[in-house]
């Protein structure tokens, strides 16, 4: 019951995204990736890097893979995965992020994220950052990321 409702909502969301997308017919025909809640954490002044988060939903029947990203606001964009082991924060670049057919993958604080390197200016709350996500099958997908203040207190928002 719940799963089918979520699927229904996801399908509606995907349809809305496709319907509202100004992309050409050829592009929208294969636009099987929906980007949900894309956001970038506001950065401190002087910080050269920023982290971006999004849930990628694959509405297609073929497994897809996010292979790279680019943005006019950053000199370079990489895909990274963060992990915590014994109080040590580790970061590693990943070659790609799989988005299973009919499934989704979450890029969220504490794990996978889009790393914006050499940013042109501070990412400030309320800004909108244009990003192009490149997928193995879906190709280039333009997504606007909203800059938000990072929640503090282990999920306890202030």
């Amino acid at each position, binding site marked *: 019951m719940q799963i089918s409702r979520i699927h229904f909502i996801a399908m509606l969301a995907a349809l809305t995204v496709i319907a509202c997308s100004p992309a050409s017919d050829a592009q929208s025909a294969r636009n099987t990736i929906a980007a949900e809640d894309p956001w970038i*954490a506001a*950065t*401190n*002044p*002087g*910080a*050269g*890097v*920023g*982290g971006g988060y999004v849930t990628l939903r694959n509405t297609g029947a073929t497994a897809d893979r996010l292979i790279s990203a680019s943005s006019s606001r950053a000199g*370079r964009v*990489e895909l*990274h995965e*963060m992990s*915590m082991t014994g*109080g*040590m*924060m*580790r*970061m*590693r*670049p990943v070659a790609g992020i799989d988005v299973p057919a009919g499934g989704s993958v979450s890029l969220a*604080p*504490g794990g996978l*994220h889009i*790393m*914006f*390197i050499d940013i042109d200016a501070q990412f400030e709350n309320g800004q909108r950052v244009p990003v192009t996500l490149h997928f193995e099958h879906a190709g280039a997908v333009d997504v606007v990321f909203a800059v938000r203040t*990072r929640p*503090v*207190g*282990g999920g*306890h928002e*202030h």
Partner: protein
Amino acid sequence: MNTETRRFRWTDWPVLAIAGLAAVLAVLVILYVNTAPRTAARSERATQFSHFAQGVDDVALTDSSGAQLTWADLNGKPRLVFFGFTNCPEICPTTIAEMSAAIEAIGPAARQIEVDFVSVDPARDTPDHLAVYMESFGPQFRGLTGDRAQIDRLVSAFRASYEYVPTEGDDYTVNHTAITYLVNAEGRVVDIIGYGSPHERTVAQIRALVGA
């Protein structure tokens, strides 16, 4: 009526006495459970870190105002110590924001506290750069940088670690310990806060550090 009242009187006193004893016992048990182990745990926790940050009094650093100082110069005020770098996308800004929020939540009692952000990427984190980075959090927040050798002595004295990880081109990022150390005015590590620890717990730990 009379016999009934008398029966109640006879049974009332032992019942009252037992209830009274039980109440006293319950209060004692609650007091013991609530306070004794907690204070014991706190002092046990403090001694657990007593070997941290030893032998580093002469470690020479430069703060974000450009002033040269030694680690011992920082004594005199309780402080929070964190190792990080400004090109850190998540852990460092989150930790600084969390400490700032906790200090704000405590209010005037936490005004004396200082936050020391020690860079493990001194090649990129110059004093000027750290000043820009820390500025928005207020004068309680201080960036510290210096020679790698000096910073390394500090890092190992805190039983922390870091390593450089190459990324695209000749760039790199830094893996590092994501722990906030609570240091008292005498320079002793009395407690630690792990990354992602609940806000209320962080507030309580910092409150205990400043004695509020």
